[in-house]
């Protein structure tokens, strides 16, 4: 449900002119809801940025998300896998 909610809010932001990237924890939900730009992260529910107290891993997730915003070859809906 969280995955769907952030996708729907991201769509509203995009409609109003804000570029977005969402993290997604369930690939099948991302494929059905189709957020404009999504990074699928291979972590359990409750851990979208990875392990607690691991700034390096959290930065790796953020950097992957920022790359999606910068990648001009992507087309909507863009779903990219994060490989830590």
């Amino acid at each position, binding site marked *: 449900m969280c995955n769907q909610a952030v996708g729907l809010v991201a769509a509203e932001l995009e409609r109003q002119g804000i570029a977005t990237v969402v993290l997604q*924890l369930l690939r099948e939900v991302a494929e059905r809801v189709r957020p404009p730009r999504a990074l699928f992260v291979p972590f359990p529910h409750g851990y979208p*940025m990875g392990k607690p*107290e691991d700034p390096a891993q959290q930065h790796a997730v953020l950097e992957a998300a920022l790359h999606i915003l910068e990648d001009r070859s992507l087309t909507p809906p863009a779903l990219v896998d994060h490989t830590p």
Partner: protein
Amino acid sequence: MGTMSEFPLSLRLFLKAYPWRRIDPVPWTPLAKPLSESRLALLSSAGFVVPGQEPFDAAVRGGDVSFRDIPAGVDVRTLADTHRSESFDHSGLREDPNVAFPIDRIRELAARGRIGSMNHRHLSFMGSITAPGRLVRHTGPEAARRLVADGVDVALLVPV
């Protein structure tokens, strides 16, 4: 890996039959300027509130679609997890809220110029929304209007 198998059988059956909202057409705003000149806002569905704010209400039928402003200067350790869902492990984000609300990391990105700036506020939702009609029609667009008025260029949205 996040999979349906993490959930109890009753929830898996519910999700299997659930009519997910398909975004169609998919809206798309290209990046208008380099990230090093862009203002970023963070949106979380982890149900966080700052001290003194009204907790999210798990009793609302179909889900609580309201949202809270989280000031950019907040000490992330003071955020309270008011998400009532039992379908995920809360212990990680209680130990380190950056697991679901990475504001310390985003401050570091702004400090080293990877992004231009962080918005003066971020937005917190609670994600157990099974009936998202009011989210799509009302609070989602309202959240977007506020961020547009703030001059936000890009947003990162984090589910839990």
